């Protein structure tokens, strides 16, 4: 009996709050990032200094990139949503080690780079619609004549420590009994240097990063990327604070609108099939089938099987 009254009371309260919801959508009830952006009059975009072509420092030390262009679109959507055309867009550099603390403490509102969206990371942050899909492959010297995973048997390979790629090559090594020596490197540039100097025969990494490293090498034609991939294509996403549904909604809508419009395709071509600053290298990475699907029906899932 008592619980019945309580239930009815709850239902009434719910009904009331639902009825009031449309009224409370105005500025004074903004929460999370949208409120913070409105109060401070600025939205802060975190960028990486060397994630070519997603987010990096161009010729005049100004951050540029594919992910950054997408973030500017999100910032425009935030401006429109808040009705603040003069909202300031600030840029703040981040590294793989600082991106989480800076996002958590409110220094940055969007992280624009090449951050893989996976289930484990979704416990700490959320991601908007994936902007790129990349599979794990390896780059080696053309003279070594390596194309498949089997070709690597018994050889020394390198990967960047702390990445999902080094985990995958470790697993493949055990499962397929390849007998590899796997060296961890501090960052991508150094891992590539290890292949260049012969400390390792191959560098296992996201294929898009390999393409950019090879394209900017002294002699791009001396390197080739493996034909066989080690993983399903994994999604890159733009990071937003966790459990901030109103802000994520703005970001999701803005990115979905961009990706499904012809502008999305043009943006992709600008960074992946044409010469890019600062040295006018061309990555030559036409859109894959998975990417075309993602741009027709954008999703933000951390599960590679969903793409």
């Amino acid at each position: 009996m008592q619980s019945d009254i309580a239930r009815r009371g709850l239902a009434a309260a719910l009904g009331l709050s639902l009825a009031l919801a449309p009224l409370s959508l105005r500025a004074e009830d903004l929460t999370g990032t949208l409120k913070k952006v409105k109060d401070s009059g600025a939205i802060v975009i975190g960028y990486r200094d060397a994630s070519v072509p997603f987010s990096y420092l161009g010729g005049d030390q100004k951050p540029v990139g594919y992910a950054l262009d997408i973030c500017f679109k999100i910032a425009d959507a935030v401006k429109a949503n808040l009705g603040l055309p003069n909202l300031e867009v600030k840029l703040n550099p981040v590294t793989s080690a600082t991106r989480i603390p800076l996002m958590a403490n409110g220094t940055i509102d969007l992280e624009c780079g090449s951050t893989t969206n996976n289930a484990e990371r979704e416990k700490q942050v959320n991601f908007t619609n994936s902007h790129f899909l990349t599979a794990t492959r390896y780059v080696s010297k053309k003279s070594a004549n390596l194309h498949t995973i089997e070709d690597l048997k018994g050889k020394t390979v390198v990967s960047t420590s702390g990445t999902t790629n080094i985990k995958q090559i470790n697993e493949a090594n055990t499962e397929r009994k390849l007998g590899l020596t796997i060296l961890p490197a501090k960052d991508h540039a150094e891992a590539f240097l290890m292949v260049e100097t012969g400390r390792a025969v191959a560098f296992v990494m996201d294929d898009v990063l390999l393409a950019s490293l090879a394209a900017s090498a002294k002699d791009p034609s001396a390197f080739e990327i493996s034909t066989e991939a080690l993983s399903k294509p994994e999604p890159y996403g733009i990071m937003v604070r966790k459990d901030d549904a109103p802000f994520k909604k703005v970001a999701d809508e803005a990115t979905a609108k961009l990706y499904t419009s012809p502008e999305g395709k043009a943006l992709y071509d600008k960074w992946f099939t044409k010469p890019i600053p600062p040295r006018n290298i061309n990555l030559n990475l036409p859109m894959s089938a998975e990417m075309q699907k993602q741009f027709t029906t954008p999703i933000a899932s951390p599960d590679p099987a969903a793409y």
Partner: protein
Amino acid sequence: MNYNWNWRIFFDASPEGNGTYLDMLLSGLMWTIATALCSWLIAFFLGSLIGVLRTLPSKTANAIGTAYVELFRNVPLLVQMFLWYFVLPEVVPTQVGDAIKQLPDAPFYTAVVCLGFFTASRVAEQVRAGIQSLPRGQGMAGTAMGFTVYQTYRYVLLPNAYRIILPPMTSEFLNNLKNTSVALTIGLLELTARARSMQEFSFQVFEAFTAATLLYVIINLVVVTAATYLERAVAIPGQR
């Protein structure tokens, strides 16, 4: 702060597939300790030698000692790591270079040699300061007793000098221990490198670095305590 604290993360299986995140950090700690101890052996003996060279009554010996110290303490440690790891194998004959590159655990050996040579330059300065702080009469007394230069250093000057410089040497030892983290740039999977990969995998950055900090503090406290006992054990009764 919008952060999802999870202190139980240490007991979750790490994605590397061999144990938990805690095991990962502890394996990093082992590499840190191994690197620190091995490089300290080089630093102590080479540093003592260079320090003595700088106090000998020979111009050539002084010049060699000074050149060594200035070279190794003026080049940033990070640059030295890169020189040892990437440049050295290219300047030696190709066969030797290839052999170095194929060495298993190459980052470990490189880090030991690099840190050893770097810290030696700092130890050398401490040793020199210790010797020069002794009254000049001590060396003269040695000569008057008919000691050779070697004997004067071995039995008169160094035993006193080492006692004087024990506290700053403890600092050098601690510095050396923490400097091992620079070796993560050449791929040594020591404590800081492990904390970094833990935060990349799990995104639990504060937990990872808190644990690493605590581990560093604990080993440093152990070293400081041991040094205090050592100081007491070797003190000359009645001095000071």
